[in-house]
């Protein structure tokens, strides 16, 4: 990290998933305050505490020692994006494709520009390992978990990134524990939320197909 003043960062880790290893890794980076709540109340509490940035870590993801510093490097400056995500690896050290938002050909210019800064543009994010600017919560409110269930954060991030481009910093890494991990919608209980998400207009046709295929499999 290269700045004189460190912004106040609050790390939010969901209670049920928080492992000792994750807590140790978070505590080792900046003066982060680890909270053990679900995402929305944690975000709310973090903003109320005056944090400028909130670092979400879900699914038991354990960040690398320099993970936060690398996110912060990309999250500051005059054109700082409201959302900066890191790369999530599985237990074998392989990037988890389903947790990396795919781009489109329209993002080509941004992808080329980003490569020079070692990041890639994103139009939405998952909550597994991501740094959020407090202003995004101030402007867009909290994810609507009641209505959109497992898709709430994705929908929220798409709204936040409608006008601005987010960044994914591949050198900022967090590793999931063995098992299915975070970001997987779903079970039968998620059918109404998935239907509501499909009607928001935020998903492409391909994403709708993938979501309903995942539901069918479950």
């Amino acid at each position: 990290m290269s700045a004189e003043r460190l912004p106040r960062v609050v790390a939010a880790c969901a209670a049920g998933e928080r492992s000792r290893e994750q807590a140790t890794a978070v505590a080792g980076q900046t003066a982060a305050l680890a909270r053990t709540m679900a995402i929305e109340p944690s975000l709310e509490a973090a903003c109320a505490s005056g944090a400028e940035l909130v670092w979400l870590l879900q699914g038991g993801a354990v960040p690398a020692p320099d993970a936060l510093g690398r996110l912060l490097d990309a999250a500051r400056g005059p054109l700082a994006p409201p959302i900066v995500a890191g790369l999530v690896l599985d237990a074998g050290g392989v990037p988890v494709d389903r947790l990396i938002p795919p781009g489109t050909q329209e993002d080509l210019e941004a992808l080329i520009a980003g490569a020079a800064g070692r990041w890639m543009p994103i139009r939405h994010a998952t909550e597994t390992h991501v740094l959020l600017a407090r202003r995004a919560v101030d402007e867009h409110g909290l994810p609507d978990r009641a209505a959109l269930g497992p898709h709430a954060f994705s929908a929220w991030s798409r709204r936040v990134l409608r006008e601005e481009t987010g960044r994914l910093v591949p050198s900022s890494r967090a590793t999931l524990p063995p098992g299915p991990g975070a970001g997987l919608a779903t079970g039968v209980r998620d059918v109404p939320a998935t239907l509501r998400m499909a009607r928001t207009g935020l998903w492409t046709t391909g994403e709708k197909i993938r979501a309903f295929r995942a539901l069918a499999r479950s």
Partner: protein
Amino acid sequence: MSTRPAQPPESVCAVVVTYNRLELLERCLEALAGQTRPVEEIVVVDNASTDGTAAAVRAAHPDVVLLALEENVGGAGGFHAGMAQAHAAGHGWLWIMDDDTLPEPGALAALLAGAERAPGPSVPPLLASQVLWKDGSLHPMNRPFVRWREPGTVATGAEHGLVALRSATFVSLAIRREAVDRFGLPLREYFIWGDDFEYTNRLLRDTPGYLVPESRVLHWTDRPHTSITGARERFYYHVRNSLLVLRGSSMDAWERLSYLRYWAGTLKDYLRIHGHSRQAWAIVLRGLRDGCRGSAR
């Protein structure tokens, strides 16, 4: 193809295909001569130009290897011939381009630096430059396709300052010798249109190539866009070659479906633009017939 490592592995041969554009060719050769990392050899493939290109190159550039073809074999045939020559000479990299390509002085050095920092255990099969139009924007004719369906690969590429590609055009493309050993040359029977798409898709089906942002070239065309559907007789090549690509093995099922939709749309637009005339239908049907008959790879 047989290998002949007569040159060091990092030797670069620039292959320029030209047809009746001597003035542009001169500018291209000048830009090649001005590279901060010089090329070991330049091969100019003259597609039977009628403007005295061959004589002019012989006179002004005695150090250039000139392949003066007896007939115009199109861009596809030209690149086939030029790359065969460069490969046979044993060069490690084949840097290919049209005669209206103007590389910035550091374009080649940046491409090779990109190869050095590319992720993965082996050197990527190809590296591409940013292709810009006169106004500095990305040239619409040369927008490469990114490996969007492999987000992990795209992310890893970005981490190394590169853009992971699925396909690219023949405007400033550095192709690794081993890729030619394994996949052969562009298909000369394509003549024009789709040869680069087919070839790069074939090379990059299982392994990513990369765009190197710091490597920049100007593609000096009068207009930023050529309408495929606005073409008349040439549309035949689009119909035929696209069908050959669809029948070949360079794309997976999902990519084929996506390309089929695009292709069907161009056919529909072409027939509409030309008033569903008998001539337009004849061109489309001839392309379909030859696309079904031709051998696909």
